[in-house]
């Protein structure tokens, strides 16, 4: 028996550029462009908040409370005289920033557990899937509510609670993708030339599972932003004047009839941000859907 060690894995350049193809499909879909544009805008707003917002996030002005939208305060002012436009801008750092951290954590857990389950299979896989079943037995957001209540109410704990409860969907998805990928011929080829399991996993299977995970992460970001704001509205997150969209709406609730702009603008910010992530997610999925290809 001769060892196949002398056979090198050969790099074959693809004839068909995946990236160029994806980009061309991307350009054909106006909704995806719209969604991606929203995401880019929101991220720019968050990063450059100090330059965009004319006032600080918790800057008060007791002589100028509950003013309707005007040239000085384009979204009006709140009950403490805070500029709502500035607060909405600053809040994108908290809402989108923490959602990104939550989804990164969930995706990282998914990569570890999903690849373990998908590649080892058998009892490990079965056990991990039963654990995800348990987490998915709770309707969405109810488990993070309970966790946040137990560990104490503040923004970081709310993000932690969402991260603890958010990984099972991504994990199940990735595990499914890995199960399909590992039966593909390129994996067999890699095995035939003697690549070990870990190398196959990290160099072959995981890179090929990247796109489905990207889609699930994009949708996950939208869901997390919405869930975060919802729980924060209920009082599970921010407190005492912090600029956060859901909390701003809960403050605006007391003034909703006579001063509706307090709650309207943060709500619009949530709505358009989440729409952006969903449109982009839909678009990424269409681009990747093999049934639509070629």
């Amino acid at each position, binding site marked *: 028996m001769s060892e196949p060690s002398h056979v090198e894995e050969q790099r074959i350049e693809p004839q068909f550029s995946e990236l160029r193809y994806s980009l061309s499909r991307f350009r054909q879909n106006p909704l995806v462009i719209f969604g991606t544009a929203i995401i880019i805008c929101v991220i720019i707003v968050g990063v450059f908040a100090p330059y965009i917002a004319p006032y600080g996030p918790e800057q008060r002005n007791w002589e100028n409370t509950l003013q309707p939208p005007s040239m000085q305060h384009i979204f009006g002012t709140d009950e403490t005289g805070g500029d709502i436009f500035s607060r909405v801008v600053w809040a994108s750092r908290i809402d989108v920033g923490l959602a990104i951290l939550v989804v990164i954590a969930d995706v990282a857990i998914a990569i570890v557990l999903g690849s373990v389950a998908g590649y080892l299979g058998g009892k490990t896989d079965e056990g991990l899937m*039963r654990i995800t079943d348990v987490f998915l037995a*709770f309707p969405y957001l109810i488990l993070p509510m309970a966790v946040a209540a137990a560990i104490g109410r503040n923004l970081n704990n709310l993000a932690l609670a969402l991260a603890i409860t958010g990984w099972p969907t991504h994990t199940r998805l990735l595990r499914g993708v890995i199960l399909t990928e590992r039966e593909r011929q390129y994996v067999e080829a890699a095995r035939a030339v003697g690549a070990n399991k870990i190398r196959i996993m990290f160099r072959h299977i995981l890179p090929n599972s990247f796109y489905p995970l990207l889609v699930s992460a994009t949708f996950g970001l939208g869901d997390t932003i*919405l869930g975060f704001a919802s729980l924060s509205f209920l009082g599970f997150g921010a407190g005492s004047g912090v600029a956060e969209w*859901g909390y701003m709406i809960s403050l605006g609730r007391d003034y*909703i009839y006579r001063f509706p702009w307090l709650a309207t603008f943060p*709500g619009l910010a949530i709505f358009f941000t989440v729409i952006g992530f969903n449109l982009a997610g839909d678009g990424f999925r269409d681009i990747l859907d093999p049934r639509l290809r070629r």
Partner: protein
Amino acid sequence: MHLRFYIARRLVLLIPVLLGVSLVTFSITHVFGNPVAAYVDERTPEAQIQQIIKEHGFDKPLYVQYVIYINDLLHGDWGRSRSLNNRPVVDAIKDFWPATFELTTFALVITMLISIPLGIFSATHQDKPLDHLTRIFSLSGVAMPIFWLGLLMLVVFYYQFKILGLPNLPSGGRISEFLYPPFVPTTGFFLLDSILQGRPDVFIDALAHLIMPALCLAYPGVTMVTRMMRSSMLEVMRQDYIILARAKGLSERIVIYKHALKNAMIPTVTVVGISFGSLLTGASIVETVFSWPGLGRWAASSIITSDVAAIAGYAIISALVYVTVNLIVDIIYALIDPRIRLG
């Protein structure tokens, strides 16, 4: 596989899930949280606290505590809700569930009544302006913060209508305060009670209170089922047997309603199960916005008093309901599509 075996298998598979659910809520109340908090408040004397710790075994190792916890759960001791003057959690659930059940059921009915016809309409008018409008509407559902939607609805249908002198919907609660003669609910389901007691005035009043929260709660589900119905209808309309039905010269009406609809409904059934989950989650948000005295508002308000027992109880009950609904949905699915049983 025979349907009976399928159901039996699903029931057996439920046991580890429910054990897992109890383990998660146990971790929340006993590991992350302080379990003694569920039984005491600031005024409880130290001696009594020690007694409670002894009684419930909170000084024992965790695995012993878990066994005690399961035993307590099975015997109806789910802790005490400090936001309700230390009422037992199980009693609170008994008090609150009719309000939540009435709201979610009504919202589910609205979901079906709006989304199924809308999905069919959208699919049969593919790429026409109204189809695009429907698709924009269904897209809005995934991003709509329903607490915000509820507030906007209040501004329009309560406040603005009132200002304009139009008949307005009530701003919250389940029923107007000063009804004469006084209304005493018997089952807790106000619509049902008013019919049983022959009170049309109460029925109309309760319905007026129900309509706005139910519409708000139904919103995400409506858009989700509409989207599913549309795509599943489009998928079915491409099948050979539809082409055959058309070739036979059947009217478009018969093709759609007698041939396509039945098969298009199959995937929609599962989405209804999933959208039920969004109803349970939404209940805590909508009940808070509309001051609806149900389970969800109780659980959500418990955060202010750190009433972990209340929220853990709510988590258990909603997981039980959600798991049961999904089991029923799966059984219906297996009934109408025998291929499922083989899987």
